[in-house]
């Protein structure tokens, strides 16, 4: 398998993620916005991560009425844009891709689709449900810690406002270590462990902008190409056009860029819905 090279689109995605970091760093200092991806406020209105909202509701056994709309707004964004956040904004995910580019070894066998049905991508549901059950059954809310963008932005704000490094850096290093030692299946943490990622992919029903393979142009059958699946960080079996698997798509555009016969089109709406 070829070592994944950093291409132009990756660079652009690194820029968008950096701009988000810049925004989250500068905005509170300027008083424009406060908070992180867990919850943020513009003074007049607030947004909250729906996963955090669900965790709060389950662990306190109450519904915070003032947060229903903020949670639904973000949930709606996720319904439409799916894991776009994971692909273009989440600083941890982007950093993981870059660390893979450095550490991936040629000996890794080309994997992809066949393994998707395997344990790694389904186990994350067990993890997410365990996290939610822990909140409900024994009021344990510590899984808030494992929302990587929250951890990352908190590290930054703690440094900006207090000049201190807290527990978050340890958690970040733990996430990176877990990812490094796991077998390389694209963005391992994102695919196999991240509760936030699992939550987002479950909600990404409309999921604008996803790859569609033109089966007539595709050479996989004859020539065993599978380039798209090999480069897909979310390890989606792209050639199958499977509607469940495609919910993982983080719109990184790598499949589209790497297809040697340009058989992949990024379609905005799912054509099947329009029938």
């Amino acid at each position, binding site marked *: 398998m070829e070592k994944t090279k950093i291409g132009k689109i990756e660079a652009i995605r690194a820029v968008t993620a950096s701009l988000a970091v810049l925004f989250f760093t500068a905005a509170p200092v300027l008083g424009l916005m406060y908070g*992180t991806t867990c919850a943020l406020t513009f003074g007049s209105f607030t947004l909250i991560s729906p996963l955090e909202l669900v965790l709060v509701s389950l662990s306190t056994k109450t519904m915070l009425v003032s947060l229903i709309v903020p949670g639904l707004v973000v949930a709606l964004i996720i319904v439409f844009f799916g894991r776009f956040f994971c692909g273009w904004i989440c600083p941890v995910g982007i950093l993981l891709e870059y660390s893979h580019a450095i550490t991936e070894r040629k000996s890794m066998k080309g994997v992809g689709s066949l393994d998707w049905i395997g344990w790694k991508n*389904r186990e994350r549901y067990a993890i997410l449900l365990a996290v939610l059950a822990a909140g409900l059954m024994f009021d344990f809310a510590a899984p808030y810690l494992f929302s990587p963008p929250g951890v990352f932005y908190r590290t930054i704000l703690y440094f900006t406002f207090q000049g201190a490094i807290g527990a978050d850096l340890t958690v970040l290093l733990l996430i990176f270590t877990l990812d490094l030692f796991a077998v390389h299946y694209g963005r391992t943490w994102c695919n196999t462990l991240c509760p936030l990622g699992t939550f987002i992919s479950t909600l990404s029903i409309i999921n604008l902008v996803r790859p569609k393979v033109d089966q007539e142009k595709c050479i996989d059958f004859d020539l065993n190409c599978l380039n798209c699946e090999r480069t897909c960080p979310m390890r989606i079996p792209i050639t199958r056009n499977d509607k469940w698997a495609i919910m993982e798509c983080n719109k990184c555009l790598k499949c589209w860029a790497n297809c040697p016969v340009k058989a992949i089109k990024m379609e905005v709406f799912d054509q099947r819905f329009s029938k």
Partner: protein
Amino acid sequence: MRITRRQFIKLLAEGAAALSALKLVSLIPSPSPTAILRPPGAVKEEYFNRLCVRCGICLEVCPTKAILLSDFNDGIEAVDTPKIDPTVGPCEFFRGRCEEVMRCSKFCPTEALQLADKEKVKIGTVELNPDKCLAYIGKECVVCDEMCPVPEAITITSDLLPIFHDEKCVGCGLCVYYCPAEPKALTLRPDGAKRA
């Protein structure tokens, strides 16, 4: 998404394993024996760690930078929740920039910190270490009394020594912050905190 019964049971088993792991983690005792000093307007501790989504908003809006984030020492349940450190900044909820409205509580999205009447809030109680106090070693100092915003919470003896009246103390930490002794003669303890 097709899934066989076998895979489903496997998932359930893995879920149970993950849940047990989480339960074990939740049972790890906190290395630090004392309770945590919470920002004014905090709800009772059993609810606080569950309501707080660790968004960092309270830390960002605090005008004195009195709020820090709890670390693993404070217990895994509380990691990244806000706590007050009066040596970094005093809490100006009783007198100062937050005397009209407590900014942390105003902006907390989940009401882990709730707006409250400042007369009803008590962050903790201050404790004097006479061995470190400048007044007790004969220097002219009662900065604690000068700064204290609560009438009669600190009184001065005829020998110019400060006496602390715990029941009146609101735990704002102004005395701790301004105490000029090196090291400080005052600490703020979470005892006696009145929660929302």
